[in-house]
């Protein structure tokens, strides 16, 4: 028998250390599937490290991969803080990307100073509306937003395919379902010569800082935290709970939408139905690993991007399936969940005959 008692005041060191430990542990656990696949384990880890830190190009590739994850991670972190279960980041990402393509492929023409903000705004609004829907269904009808936002992912992805075979299809694409390229004025500029890293990365960091300031220092942040922790008391204290909830839903969707804009306008240049390899879902892991802290999201997005990029590179060299990256990332989520438990509770073995 074991007895579980809550810790009165979990130490900050413990709370902060848990995600780091979880991340390390998930990397260590990756050795098991590697061994299962018959790969040389130490060599594989080496390949992963050089795949990320081996060259300036590799490193910037990793940051490029981290960019959408920062956005989707922020989307999840902000929503979860208000106990809004936005699992629809994937769909909202595509909505943002679609809006960016719609506005940025010639509908309006202007200088970059106008076009870039316009494309970002369009993507944010589209993504925001994409989460506002489930949030309204929740507040109006009590329909669980977990399920509706999840199902919307499928609907939106099919919708994207439909648009790419229809109105958004590039006539020059020789039958491939892809959109026209974004006009040059709307493209997020590259940060360095010959590297794919683009201004979306800086934008993501800036957004994380703003999110941090809002959550920690403003009345809005306090309201969001109050609504998330105890909506009944928040309502009793005169905080407009529904309005805060809907605003958070919009903001969360908008953040995921920005991920889509950043991918289209910063990296790919056009929209395809395989724009995102699950950035929306991975954002949930990013947020949890960050303990829902906006600044932490940047760090955890970089960690997870490293896992993906490193594994890809290792996979090419050794031939182990790159699904290993998904496996490692999912294990890090479970590890951080478990770690949170050990940070919050004390576990004591009981002598025989004792009871909790």
């Amino acid at each position: 028998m074991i007895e579980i008692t809550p810790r009165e005041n979990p130490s900050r060191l413990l709370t902060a250390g848990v995600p780091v430990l979880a991340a390390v542990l998930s990397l260590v656990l990756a050795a098991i599937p590697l061994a299962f696949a018959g790969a040389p384990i130490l060599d594989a880890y080496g390949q992963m490290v050089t795949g990320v830190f081996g060259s300036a190009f590799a490193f910037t590739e990793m940051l490029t991969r981290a960019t959408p994850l920062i956005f989707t991670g922020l989307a999840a972190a902000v929503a979860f803080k208000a106990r809004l279960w936005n699992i629809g980041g994937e769909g909202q990402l595509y909505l943002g990307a679609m809006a960016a393509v719609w506005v940025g492929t010639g509908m309006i023409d202007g200088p970059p100073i106008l076009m870039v903000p316009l494309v970002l705004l369009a993507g944010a609004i589209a993504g925001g509306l994409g989460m506002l829907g489930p949030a309204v269904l929740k507040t109006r009808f009590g329909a669980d937003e977990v399920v509706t936002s999840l199902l919307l992912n499928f609907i939106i992805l099919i919708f994207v395919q439909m648009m790419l075979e229809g109105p958004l299809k590039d006539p020059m694409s020789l039958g491939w379902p892809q959109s026209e390229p974004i006009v040059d004025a709307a493209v997020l500029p590259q940060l360095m010569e010959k590297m794919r890293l683009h201004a979306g990365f800086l934008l993501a960091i800036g957004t994380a800082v703003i999110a941090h300031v809002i959550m920690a220092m403003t009345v809005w942040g306090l309201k969001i935290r109050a609504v998330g922790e105890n909506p009944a008391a928040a309502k009793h204290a005169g905080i407009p709970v529904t309005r805060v909830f809907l605003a958070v839903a919009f903001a969360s969707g908008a953040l995921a939408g920005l991920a889509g804009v950043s991918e289209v306008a910063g990296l790919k240049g056009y929209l395809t139905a395989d724009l995102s390899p699950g950035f929306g879902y991975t954002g949930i892991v990013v947020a949890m690993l960050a303990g829902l802290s906006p600044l932490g999201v940047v760090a955890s997005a970089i960690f997870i991007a490293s896992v993906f990029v490193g594994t890809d590179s290792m996979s090419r060299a050794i031939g182990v399936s790159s699904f290993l990256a998904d496996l490692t990332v999912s294990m890090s989520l479970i590890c951080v969940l478990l770690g949170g438990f050990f940070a919050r509770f004390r576990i004591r073995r009981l002598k025989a005959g004792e009871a909790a």
Partner: protein
Amino acid sequence: MMDILQIFLSDSFWAASLRIATPLIFGVLGALLCERSGVLNLGIEGIFVVGAMMGWLTAYLTGSLWLGVIFAALSGGLFGLFHAVLTVPLGLSQHVSGLGITMFATALMSFSYRTIFPQVSTPPRIEPFRALDVPLLSDLPFLGPVLFQQTAMTWLALLLVALLWWIMDRTALGVAIKAVGDNPDAVNAQGLSVIRLRMGAVVAGSALMALGGAFLTMSAFDAFFFGMVNGRGWICIALVIFASWQPGKALLGALLFGMFDALQVRLQTEAGALIPGQVFLMVPYVLSIVALIIAARKADYPRALLQPWFKGQR
């Protein structure tokens, strides 16, 4: 209009409805059992993948379909046990744990498939369940093709509906499961173990979910593909609310769903020229959301759903 009427009169339409409904029946029953005990299991989508892969793999390696079914259920139960440990004795977030299980299970199955079958050009196939040709009965007009030309797994699903109804409604075990999902303190005060009841329900429910996945690779198709579950697990989570956590209504919900899905396939062939095919593909997901909206208002959630319970705390 005549065309739609014809669809409804054709036995193949009703047979297809039941076929499409089968994996959902398994899934909704599984979700129902978990939620009745107070545990939301968002691992369902991943557990479907586990059932699909493990059932198929076992059948592929041993040549025995029923061994595949058994292994699918066992491995689904194992992932359910994982979710149960995290959420019941440890009391961790059921949302996050469930999503974690789904991600982990999906990644593990994909990784294993790729590792066992590196870069195959055509997916390896098995000989799937055949339609049970019940002598005489399958020759009945209409009912024959609809009911008696289904595979054994469909029959298993229908059988499980009855079994679960009986357990929940007629046995002390069912009463205890319903009680632990309503007020765990009541169960504890009467000397029953909250932890064991909940963990048992989640493991058993997860095994049922895995059978839904196994149906996909062993009855509906004959091979394993990435992404073949395609949101069916999430649809079950919506349907269980629509079914107000009752086995009978779960069957009804899954059948209604199967009907609409079968209908859209047929309408697609009829009206494919006028409407883009994707519109029809959206139908199942849209329907699930609509079902949820209809049911949510008066949904009578198990009161202790999502609430962790620790001994000695009130």
